[in-house]
């Protein structure tokens, strides 16, 4: 603790500070404020100053702060402390605790008036009422978010250096075309996977900091995926290939989903979960080292997104089992909407996957590629079924719902 007063407090003279030649135009108010904090409201602080303009400035400053001021015969300012500094913090409220593990750290409902305040800070009363639609813990929370965020930070990679873009390889034209078609499809899907969390991000109360951070990094993950898939599509001088109505219709149902938990279920648990299988498939069967590498990098990120979706839904279903019926309805509704609209995996993407896995135009190779894609599809369905079971759906229901998933994969 530094010494504030130059003279001790006694009955005969008020506490005094000497701000020497430091003027109010150079920060003298800090010294005065600091000293006033040690003086009772209504009591006097004496300020000695040699700064030019001191008298005019100390008067203006005291007026603005609600302190009284006069001068003694020696020209020293006698500041009578006003009560307004403490008044500001009357009725202020602490907004939880910063460490999510401490008791009562994270509120079941975040107050609109806490707004952007750091969780754990003391919030002045009377501030603006913020309109964060997702302001209840059960709507967004997962305890695992803290760890997933840390993992995500540690696992960030730079598209520039994470793959060897100059690796020498040449594919037959048709196989290269197939890779470009698959990349085109992946970009479209990653655009959806970027936009869905991004749209919720602006609606989540910042009190739920860990969720906000995790979704932000999820958005950044998807931005990198869009980046690397675009680079791969263009690597041999081609433009991206075909985008179908069916594919976009399927993705639009995801982007349009207004409920956070339902969207997390459809996008992360089902869509990105399925995508992990697809990316792993590409990691194994893609015909060139660049595609194999970027598929692997993207698959790792997607696996974290799935983990968050699973953690959030497990938590919410635990306290709210009736949500299960809503989730099942959401799958069915999406299935009905998509069947009516003819949405699904486009033929070009399916054929491209077969060709990728085949690697050449021989009946034997095509047969092998076809088999691999079929195996992929059953792996995907099995993965969905297992995740649904883990979320507490019974076996037959999990199997049925897993099979209703969009043919577009995401």
């Amino acid at each position, binding site marked *: 603790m530094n010494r504030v007063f130059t003279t001790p407090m006694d009955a005969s003279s008020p506490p005094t500070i000497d701000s020497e030649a430091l003027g109010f135009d150079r920060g003298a108010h800090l010294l005065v404020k600091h000293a006033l904090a040690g003086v009772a409201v209504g009591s006097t602080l004496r300020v000695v100053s040699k700064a030019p303009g001191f008298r*005019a400035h100390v008067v203006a400053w005291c007026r603005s702060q*609600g302190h009284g001021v006069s001068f003694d015969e020696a020209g020293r300012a006698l500041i009578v402390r006003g009560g*307004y500094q403490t008044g500001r913090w009357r009725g202020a409220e602490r907004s939880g605790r910063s460490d999510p593990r401490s008791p009562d750290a994270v509120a079941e409902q975040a107050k609109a008036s806490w707004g952007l305040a750091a969780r754990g800070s003391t919030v002045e009363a*009377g501030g603006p009422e913020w309109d964060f639609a997702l302001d209840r813990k059960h709507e967004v929370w997962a305890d695992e978010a803290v760890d997933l965020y840390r993992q995500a930070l540690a696992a960030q990679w730079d598209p520039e250096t994470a793959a060897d873009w100059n690796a020498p390889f040449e594919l037959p034209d048709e196989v290269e075309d197939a890779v470009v078609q698959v990349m085109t499809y992946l970009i479209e899907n990653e655009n959806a996977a970027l936009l869905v969390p991004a749209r919720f991000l602006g609606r989540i109360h910042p009190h739920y900091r860990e969720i906000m951070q995790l979704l932000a990094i999820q958005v950044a993950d998807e931005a990198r995926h869009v980046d690397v898939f675009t680079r791969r599509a263009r690597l041999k001088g081609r433009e991206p290939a075909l985008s179908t109505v069916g594919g976009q219709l399927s993705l639009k149902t995801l982007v349009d989903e207004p409920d956070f938990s339902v969207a997390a279920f459809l996008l992360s648990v089902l869509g990105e979960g399925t995508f992990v299988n697809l990316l792993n498939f590409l990691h194994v069967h893609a015909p060139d080292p660049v595609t194999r590498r970027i598929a692997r990098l993207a698959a790792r990120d997607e696996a974290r997104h799935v983990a968050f979706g699973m953690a959030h839904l497990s938590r919410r279903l635990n306290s709210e089992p009736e949500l299960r019926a809503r989730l099942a309805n959401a799958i069915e509704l999406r299935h009905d909407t998509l069947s009516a609209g003819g949405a699904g995996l486009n033929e070009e993407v399916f054929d491209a996957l077969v060709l990728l896995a085949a690697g050449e135009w021989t009946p034997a190779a095509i047969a092998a590629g076809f088999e691999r894609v079929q195996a992929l599809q059953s792996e995907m369905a099995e993965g969905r079924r297992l995740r649904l079971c883990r979320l507490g759906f019974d076996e037959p229901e999990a199997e049925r719902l897993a099979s209703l998933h969009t043919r577009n994969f995401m």
Partner: protein
Amino acid sequence: MPETLLMGAVAYAPKVVTIWEGFKAYFAERGLAFDYVLYSNYERQVEAQFEGAIHVAWNSPLAWVRAERMARARGVAVSAVAMRDTDRDLSSLIVVRAGAGIESFADLRGRTVGFGAVDSPQATLIPLEHLSRHGLQAGRDFTARRFDQLGGKHGDHIGGERDAALALTRGEIDAACMIDSNHLAFTTEGILPAGGTRILAQTDAYDHCNFTVSPGAPTELVDRFVELLLAMSWDDPAARPLMELEGLKQWLPGRTTGYALLERAVDEQGFYDADGRILAADYR
């Protein structure tokens, strides 16, 4: 429906609407029907006080001087019922660049001094009076350069003072006039470099705005208005943002002892006549 207290205010900035809408809600919650009328300038507002259009006016000090003169000329009375704690005992400063060699009033001879709006008590009328008292007349002893912003607003908009301060730092003028708190604010915000200016002179203290009651306004309504105003507390989180916007910590009863300096400036510079008629030729 109870009678509504009508208050006039001058719209010198968009925040004026926020402020008085907030006050309207504050009064309504306490059972006082209150509404406000915005004027684009103080002259129109003061005239409205004598046409029965408004019961009270949130007046600049210059508007108070005029209202008081107009009332006297008509054989009626106006009164100042409330003011901000920050309206009392202000002073204006004449500021020069540090090291410019201007150490006394005499050094201002032949120089250019920057002022605020033509109708600004703090940045024009009172500093001119101060210079005149020290033997310096604009046009004769020094060149007056005005930084006009929004005439009719009586200097409420600080743009003129800021422009003068900027012109001072650029060396376009030799001195600039501003209210004490603006000199502090400009140096704090870096508009004026810290230590780059020095205060050549400080005027005597004067008071600023007040709520002026129009002749014949309903006493009970006005009393209730004043009572609620004085009860407004900085500790009340609903009222505090309004008080911050209006720049006060506490409303105080009105007093009229702090306007003599401005009265003298108005007479000397021929801004209004004794009956409150506008004399200033270049004022619009």
